[in-house]
């Protein structure tokens, strides 16, 4: 009930904000207050009756609150003259996301799903002067529609071939989740959208695809449930492995901060997909296996791990996207090779970004570890107790997750190092100033909640979902924090002579400057060289020649290969086919009427044949 109230407040507030017209301040006030109060009103509902949908509603509500706090500061100077439009569509997006989680029947669900896609597409195109934003918006728009079309087909024909229907549901929801090959809109839309919208989309909207799969996969109508679940499990597992590894490898060489974060979202969705894949596989093997109890552990831990990672990802990635927004606000650029040294100029933003990034890499003692650890745990159970192919797959999952985690550390070390540490590489970065307190509040809120979440998990998970693991982790976390605090305190006492500041050691060269620093691209170059067979970085190298070289340069470009290798040929094929039937459009009215008649006749014959 409270949720419907929340929905109403957010929706009505958005409409009111639109009506405010040119009065930007009023529009901002109405929009932000309604979004904040609506989302806050919805939160208690989460704790009154915990349902499966709640785990998807929590990110929506929390990121809604964060967006309400963050947006006013972000919009100032970045299109505040259209703030009424912004708030209307932002509120509409949040409201429709809530609606998506609430509806049980597929018709209203799809309606809300479409509204959600459309409203967020408008927000992606909010920066209307930028060509990139408009292009990204169109791409996203197309992806939304293609997904919805597949889903409509899926719901219209529930009795069709099992594998076809699985393909439809996976592709339809996968377009939102960003499974590999279906992900192409993500790295375009996230950099283009305003930061709070990116946070909302990445943290709360794309996981809704998983909700769709869980809710609407035809578990009830299919004949052989085990086979169906096994197939779904394998599909999710393979897509997840490819998404996790591919996503993080493509995040490595990115130079645009938000694009890097977008690829990291693909990676995290991959991890979640791995978790749910293991869950379905275990559930399918549940009855076949003799050792029923053993495999049930894998099912449980993978499911819980996936869910927890969704929430952690929402909180931490939301914080990171807001942090990237602050960087844009401070320096007017997201290109990492032009940034640097922001930690000195904006210590709070920098620290928050660093902590969030460590959390998202799954490093203890932060939130992200718990979800990843549970997925690892599930995979270990699969390795120990699974049989045959499931066990081999679990081994592969473990290795892939470890590798992904290692590369994620590299990716985020690069992001932090290039943006916040060292010396500024441009004047814009040197002139940066800390953002407004309200914007920081939103980030503090998200990070604080991610810490609070650990505590909540440790002491509220029921015994049968094995609280001891999470509880033990939480206790060790506390122990480590205390230990480090004692060590730091002891050092303070010991080093009474204080700290002298000097310049960075320069190896005898007296004038080091920012151009000599290691750039982000250079930092990840060894790893991206290692994965060059996947990345295929396009290099244009002009070597320095002669004794006094005049010009030398290196230009590197990374393009998403799935666009070039998969989508471009596909679109070309589609255009070719379209040209083939182009002459049908003759302009002759009689011909059109003939076509309509033919179609009607055909449908009539089809109906008679079936009936």
């Amino acid at each position, binding site marked *: 009930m409270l949720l419907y109230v929340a929905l109403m407040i957010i929706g009505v507030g958005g409409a009111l904000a639109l009506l405010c017209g040119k009065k930007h301040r009023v529009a901002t006030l109405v929009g932000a207050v309604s979004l904040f109060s609506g989302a806050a009103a919805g939160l208690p509902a989460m704790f009154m009756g915990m349902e499966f949908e709640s785990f998807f509603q929590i990110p929506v509500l929390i990121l809604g609150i964060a967006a309400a706090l963050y947006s006013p500061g972000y919009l100032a100077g970045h299109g505040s003259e259209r703030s009424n439009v912004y708030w209307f569509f932002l509120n509409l997006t949040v409201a429709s996301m809530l609606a998506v989680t609430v509806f049980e029947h597929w018709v209203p669900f799809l309606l809300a799903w479409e509204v959600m896609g459309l409203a967020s597409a408008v927000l992606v195109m909010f920066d209307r002067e930028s060509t990139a934003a408009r292009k990204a918006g169109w791409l996203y728009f197309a992806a939304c529609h293609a997904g919805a079309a597949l889903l409509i087909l899926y719901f219209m024909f529930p009795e069709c071939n099992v594998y076809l229907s699985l393909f439809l549901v996976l592709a339809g929801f996968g377009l939102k989740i960003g499974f590999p090959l279906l992900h192409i809109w993500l790295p375009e839309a996230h950099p283009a959208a305003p930061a709070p919208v990116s946070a909302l989309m990445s943290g709360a909207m794309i996981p809704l695809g998983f909700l769709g799969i869980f809710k609407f996969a035809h578990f009830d109508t299919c004949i052989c449930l085990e086979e169906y679940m096994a197939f779904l499990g394998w599909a999710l597992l393979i897509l997840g492995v490819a998404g996790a590894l591919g996503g993080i490898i493509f995040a490595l060489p990115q130079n645009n901060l938000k694009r890097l974060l977008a690829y990291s979202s693909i990676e995290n969705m991959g991890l979640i997909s791995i978790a749910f894949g293991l869950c379905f596989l275990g559930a399918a093997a549940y009855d076949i296996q003799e050792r029923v109890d053993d495999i049930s552990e894998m099912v449980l831990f993978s499911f819980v791990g996936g869910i927890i990672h969704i929430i952690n990802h929402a909180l931490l990635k939301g914080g990171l996207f807001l942090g990237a927004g602050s960087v844009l606000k401070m320096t007017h650029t997201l290109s990492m090779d032009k940034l*640097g040294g922001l*930690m000195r100029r904006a*210590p709070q933003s920098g620290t928050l970004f660093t902590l969030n990034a*460590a959390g998202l*890499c799954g490093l203890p003692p932060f939130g992200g570890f718990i979800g990843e650890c549970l997925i690892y745990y599930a995979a270990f159970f699969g390795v120990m107790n699974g049989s*045959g192919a499931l066990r081999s797959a679990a081994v592969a999952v473990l290795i892939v997750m470890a590798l992904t985690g290692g590369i994620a550390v590299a990716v985020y070390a690069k992001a932090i190092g290039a943006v916040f540490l060292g010396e500024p590489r441009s004047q814009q970065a040197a002139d940066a100033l800390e953002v407004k307190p309200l914007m920081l509040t939103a980030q503090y809120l998200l990070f604080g909640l991610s810490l609070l979440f650990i505590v909540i998990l440790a002491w509220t998970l029921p015994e049968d979902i094995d609280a001891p693991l999470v509880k033990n982790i939480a206790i060790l976390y506390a122990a480590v924090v205390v230990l480090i605090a004692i060590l730091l305190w002891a050092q303070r006492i010991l080093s009474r002579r204080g700290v002298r500041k000097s310049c960075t050691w320069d190896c005898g060269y007296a004038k080091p400057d920012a151009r000599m620093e290691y750039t982000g691209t250079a930092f990840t170059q060894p*790893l991206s060289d290692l994965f060059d067979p996947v990345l295929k970085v396009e290099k244009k190298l002009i070597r320095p020649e002669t004794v006094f070289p005049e010009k030398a340069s290196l230009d590197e470009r990374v393009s998403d290969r799935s666009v070039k290798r998969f989508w471009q040929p596909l679109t070309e094929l589609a255009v070719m086919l379209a040209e083939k039937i182009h002459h049908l459009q003759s302009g002759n009215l009689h011909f059109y009427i003939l076509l309509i008649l033919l179609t009607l006749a055909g449908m009539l014959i089809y109906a008679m044949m079936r009936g």
Partner: protein
Amino acid sequence: MEKCEMIRFIFCYAAALVFCPLLAGIINKVKAFFAGRCGVSIFQLYFDIFKLLKKERVHSATSNWILAISPLAQLGFIMAALALLPLGLNISPLGFSGDAVLLFYFLGMARFLTVLAALDTGSSFEGMGASREVQFSALAEAAVFALLALLAIHTGTLETGVMLQCAGIGISAWHTAAVMVLAGLAFFVVLLCENCRVPFDDPETHLELTMIHEAMVLDYGGPDLAVIFYGAALKLWLFASFLVALVLPESCFAGMVGICCYFGGVAVTAVLIGIIESIMARSRFLKLPQLLTGATVLVVLALIIQIFFNGGVIK
């Protein structure tokens, strides 16, 4: 019994904290022996640490809080990770099912802090070292988790201590012995990589361009450097402990025998590292990923054999 074991564990933990700088001394002695020198004292690292502790702290003007807290925070994480291992071949009282993941993620966090501190100075040398560190550790991580999967199958548990207790090169069946030899070899490679020893890194060289770990800590001096030296020594002790517990069979895990085997094993590991450093040169950086992939592949081969004898790979 329970209490007795606890006391033994605490004793071994304290011993690890006190004696870990000795490992560097042993390695240097072995290298000196191979080179025909008499070498520095085995306690040299203690002297270095004490001398450094008395000095003033100097930080780069470019740096922020990360550089300042990094050495001690790293040490904290390494100490926490060490507490999860079966020290003195006694199961850790802090251990729980699934702590193996936490152990290696603690080490991951320590590494993350080193890398960030290196980037915090804005020095190009340190960026270079950090860049190499993240590359090699990502690959080593894959080997480690493959190894953990192997141990999980082999022992049927996820608690590090119990896992390492049940594993070991025994003579019960040829394939378990073979599998464990492969696992031990692979973990030794990981140990060399994570602790920046030859052939991954040469702690002796003082040319920034060729180093990994030493390049990352160029900007530290005084008490900070002392903490870093100490942390590196403790990390080496940690990996040596893991290796010893991995290789020794279950029969060694008992009372005083266990403690003797443990300290003996750690010392032997240090000697082994010393021998390897004496007879090998540092590899080219381009070769190192191959070495680490090789370690992973070895573990996976062991895994395939293990799974094959434990229920079938596919069926």
